[in-house]
């Protein structure tokens, strides 16, 4: 698997409806491993950013209360076909992922 982020964008005039889903365990730090009984350390996306042609159109700050394999949707204006939308996140361990998609 390349990126673990998926994005779907619907253009309606100059409004882009963005839906994004990403694979991430979003561990709360209070869950125990069912086999070993050991506490699973906290591991969650902290910041998620959507940039259209390099400009931030959405920044999301997340706690561990965001569900596993997070989903977000929002809309922004001023979009047009051919724009490049980038999604990227960083988590509390400093890991990151990103993906780019061209609006069409």
């Amino acid at each position, binding site marked *: 698997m390349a990126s673990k982020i*998926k994005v779907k964008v619907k253009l309606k005039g100059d409004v882009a409806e963005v839906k994004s889903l990403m694979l991430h365990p979003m561990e709360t730090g209070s869950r125990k491993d069912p086999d070993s009984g050991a506490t699973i350390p906290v591991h969650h996306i902290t910041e998620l950013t959507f940039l259209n042609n390099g400009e931030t159109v959405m920044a999301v700050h997340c706690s561990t209360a965001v569900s596993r394999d997070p989903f977000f949707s929002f809309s922004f204006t001023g979009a047009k076909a051919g724009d490049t939308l980038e999604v990227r996140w960083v988590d509390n361990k400093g890991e990151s992922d990103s993906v780019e998609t061209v609006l069409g």
Partner: protein
Amino acid sequence: MLRPAFCRLLLLCLAAILSLPALAGPEEDREAFRAYFSQRFPDVPLDEYVNGIYALDPKAREQWLDIEQFPPYEFAVEQGEVLFRQAFANGGGYADCFDNGGIGIRQHYPRFDPALGEVVTLELALNRCRTRNGESAYAWDSDELVALSAYMAWTSRGKAIDVEIPDDPNALAAYEAGKRFYYSKRGQLNFACSDCHVTSAGAYVRADHLSASLGHPSHFPVYRSKLGRLISLHSRFYGCVRDVRARPFEEQSEEYRNLEYFLTYMSNGLMVNGPGARK
């Protein structure tokens, strides 16, 4: 005057009694199964049963539809496609092991294999394809096997489930064994599958809303939000048997394969819509 009429009636009754066991073949079972749910839930179209509890519970359905607008199983379908296309070390591939190159064929599984005299599920066929080609078999609950199954279901979406019971006494015996399993009470809680998913379909077990068995196998494998991953139909069987406090059978055991055979036959004519998303 009365006498011949009475005799005729008696004969008719006798004929009816004698023909009853003969009548209850798989096709009659299936029709009765569909008719039962049609009567229980007259407002639910038969096609809707492939959506499980969401066919019966409008509030849960809304939340499910929200997840379905961007379902987490899409990653597994993608992974499954990549795995499906990867050639084995010997140059062979999954496509060589299935009809139509493995695309759009989910609806024919499980199949009865007359040569082997047993029910072959899609997962079993996938693993046998691997071992025949010199690859090691995947664990039944491995992400890889479930992803392959998810991809193959995905390519079969919208096809009508079409499980066959060939003219072979062993095939009928496998079907009957699955049927018997389905209707037998087991475990410390003394429940049969049918107690929850026929008799009590639509009712609550604590906070869980019970789904109808019609359509049950259509949407597997299923992404469980609770687990954050996809599970196979047999893993669900395992969970149900454990939940009635019986010692569960292993995935792909003869018991579960026969159960899948019966259960899927009951859903013949409904659409494949796997993979699915459940809580």
